[in-house]
């Protein structure tokens, strides 16, 4: 498996001019940023808001790059932890030295902080805005929540428009030509239509199809959208799960996914090592998943469905927060090998079961025991002594298919004797 860069990172706007169709927002933001650099900001913080994937974070990053500023990104949920508050406050309050680069403090998705549990977070953010010596930028999909009121009042509000289908198509086309892939215009329009202005999800869809099939046609896009509800849904849910920034997002990823939780578990089980490399992360994720599995088992045995939230908490946030640091991850679609292997080996398992069924009554034992205690020795006889094996096959009425399965490379010889003796 090669490590491919997610296109949403590879094709992030490098310059402010590359940010598509947010002219008013750009102008306001740049004016505010420059007022900071001159030392006289009207407000010390800016709150960028608008629908998902319309370019809020991209604009901040592009502007920072053009002004030679470093983006210090802070996950707003980290504000709950005291040492994080102190750490970020220290960074923010430190006087800029002559040689160090300037900074932008970025708090992504502040609407993710939830009411009661995060009351401290809002206060911490307000304190940060008061004391900071650097521009503080926040983003949100929906800034109108009651709990964000004090933050709104302390910030310059900058609205972002929902991107049009045309905007999205233009961006997708640019990527297609940079990647040198064949893209049907109609297909791009279909992706754009379904994205509802979310450029990030549109680019992800484009990459999924392009890397999966080497081209992008209307049929493939349509297929993907029907997939969405079936094979594709768990993939989507996984992406949301492993990229969740907040507990509630991770929980929603598994509880509101278009997949039942047992299928979801199979997918998570498959993909923990896809998303995590570090043995500690892998261990912690599996630990959580295995706990979810235990709870699910107890529910099934006792019928006590009140345990279900624990299942979701362990398989959702438990798995997502096994990571040591947050970074966005994009992985190619791959369905669980377990399901493929089970399908591929179905016949083989049926044959083994058939042999166990044929032998168990005369050996006075369970089929399970025949499989573990008898078949391994039977295989040795079939692989090493074709003549004798053929006689045993006759003794137990084994079929030719069973003989082939037991004898492996030696099957032809065993079958020769078997047919001869049978006459």
């Amino acid at each position, binding site marked *: 498996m090669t490590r491919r860069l997610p296109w949403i990172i590879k094709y992030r706007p490098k310059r402010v001019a590359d940010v598509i169709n947010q002219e008013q927002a750009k102008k306001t933001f740049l004016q505010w940023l420059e007022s900071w650099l001159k030392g006289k900001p009207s407000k010390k913080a800016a709150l960028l808001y608008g629908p998902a994937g319309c370019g809020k974070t991209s604009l901040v990053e592009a502007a920072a790059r053009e002004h030679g500023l470093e983006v210090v990104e802070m996950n707003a949920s980290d504000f709950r932890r005291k040492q994080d508050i102190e750490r970020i406050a220290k960074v923010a309050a430190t006087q800029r030295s002559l040689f160090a680069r300037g900074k932008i403090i970025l708090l992504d998705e502040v609407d993710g902080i939830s009411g009661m549990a995060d009351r401290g977070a809002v206060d911490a953010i307000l304190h940060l805005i008061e004391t900071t010596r650097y521009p503080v930028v926040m983003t949100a999909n929906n800034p109108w929540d009651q709990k964000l009121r004090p933050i709104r009042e302390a910030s310059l509000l900058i609205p972002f428009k929902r991107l049009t289908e045309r905007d999205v198509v233009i961006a997708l086309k640019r990527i297609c030509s940079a990647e040198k892939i064949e893209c049907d215009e109609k297909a791009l329009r279909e992706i754009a239509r379904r994205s509802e202005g979310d450029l990030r999800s549109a680019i992800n869809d484009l990459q999924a199809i392009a890397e999966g099939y080497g081209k992008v046609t209307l049929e493939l896009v349509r297929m993907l959208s029907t997939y969405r509800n079936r094979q594709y849904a768990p993939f989507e849910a996984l992406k949301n799960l492993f990229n969740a920034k907040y507990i509630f997002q991770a929980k929603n990823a598994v509880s509101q996914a278009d997949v039942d939780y047992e299928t979801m578990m199979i997918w998570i089980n498959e993909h923990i090592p896809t998303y995590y490399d570090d043995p500690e992360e892998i*261990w912690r*994720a599996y630990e959580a998943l295995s706990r979810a599995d235990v709870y699910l088992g107890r529910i099934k045995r006792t019928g006590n469905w009140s345990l279900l939230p624990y299942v979701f908490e362990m398989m959702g946030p438990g798995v997502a927060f096994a990571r040591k640091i947050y970074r966005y991850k994009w992985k190619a679609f791959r369905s669980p090998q377990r399901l493929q292997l089970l399908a591929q080996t179905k016949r083989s*398992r049926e044959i083994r079961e058939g042999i166990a069924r044929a032998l168990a009554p005369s050996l006075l034992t*369970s089929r399970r025991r025949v499989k573990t205690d008898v078949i*391994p020795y*039977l295989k040795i006889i079939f692989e090493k002594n074709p003549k004798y094996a053929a006689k045993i096959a006759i003794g*137990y009425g084994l079929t030719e298919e069973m003989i082939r399965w037991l004898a492996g490379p030696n099957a032809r010889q065993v079958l020769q004797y078997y047919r001869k003796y049978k006459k």
Partner: protein
Amino acid sequence: MSSSKVLAELLWAEKYRPRSLDEIVNQEEIVSRLKKFVQEKNMPHLLFAGPPGTGKTTAAHCLAHDLYGENYRQYMLELNASDERGIDVIRSKVKEFARTRIPGNIPFKIVLLDEADNMTSDAQQALRRLMEMYTATTRFILIANYPSKIIEPIQSRCAVFRFTPLKKEDVIARLKWIAEQEKVEYDIEALEAIYELSEGDMRRAINILQAAAAIGKVTVDAVYKVVGLAHPKEVRQMINLALSGNFTEARNKLRQLMINYGLSGVDVIKQIHKEIFSQEIKLPDEYRIIIADLAGEIQFRLVEGADDEIQLNAFLARLAFIGKKLKV
């Protein structure tokens, strides 16, 4: 058909199994008590308990044979708790069986329930009610490795027979006798090796003997070769891969084991447990204890009905993490 009979062979575990109580050479005390039931043509419910391969199921069949004669199997319902899907299946089979006529001179039929200790205690409660309901026309013989896993109310309704591990000389004498019947060449040291490797399990000992004989003369080397072939090295390889920090490879090995060898999760964790204390696995001793404890927890979860792959992956992930810490 008659010629194919000559050319048909059976597994020796079946071919040389005692058919009648008279042919059983060990467990003398048990056999003499069972013979009393035959004389009296009556018996209570029975519980046979003891390690695998000590002759429990064989004794039950011999008893039935001696009670009913050659066609005894038509008067006996054979069930295996680890193959039947739940108590409901067992209940309907018993019900169906108890309805049919009983043989002339014996006033009851037999329900033989093997591996009864694999039943949950709820299922055992249901079983107890079944035993009471049909007690006029049937007798139950329950077979278990661990009598303590059979609930008290069932134990108190049964005459309990404890089968002891076979003695070394008994096992070797039997192997010798079979080898001579089959005109197999053998070294006596090889038979001793078989005894050691089979841990007192007669069926396993006979299987090893037959597989070794299929290759040629039964020598110590042949015995070890056969056992090595039958018991894949993959379990050890899997543990070592995990301990080297390579979780993904270890997971692939696990899948191979479960799919190619048809092992259940419990089979795998039991084999892992055997390997943990082996010197082939390089590990500080204090970690062996930690890992054994974890294996126990995983086995418990699997027995409770948890998912094989998820639980074993969790186990391997922990090993990989321990392996990484040890390297640092």
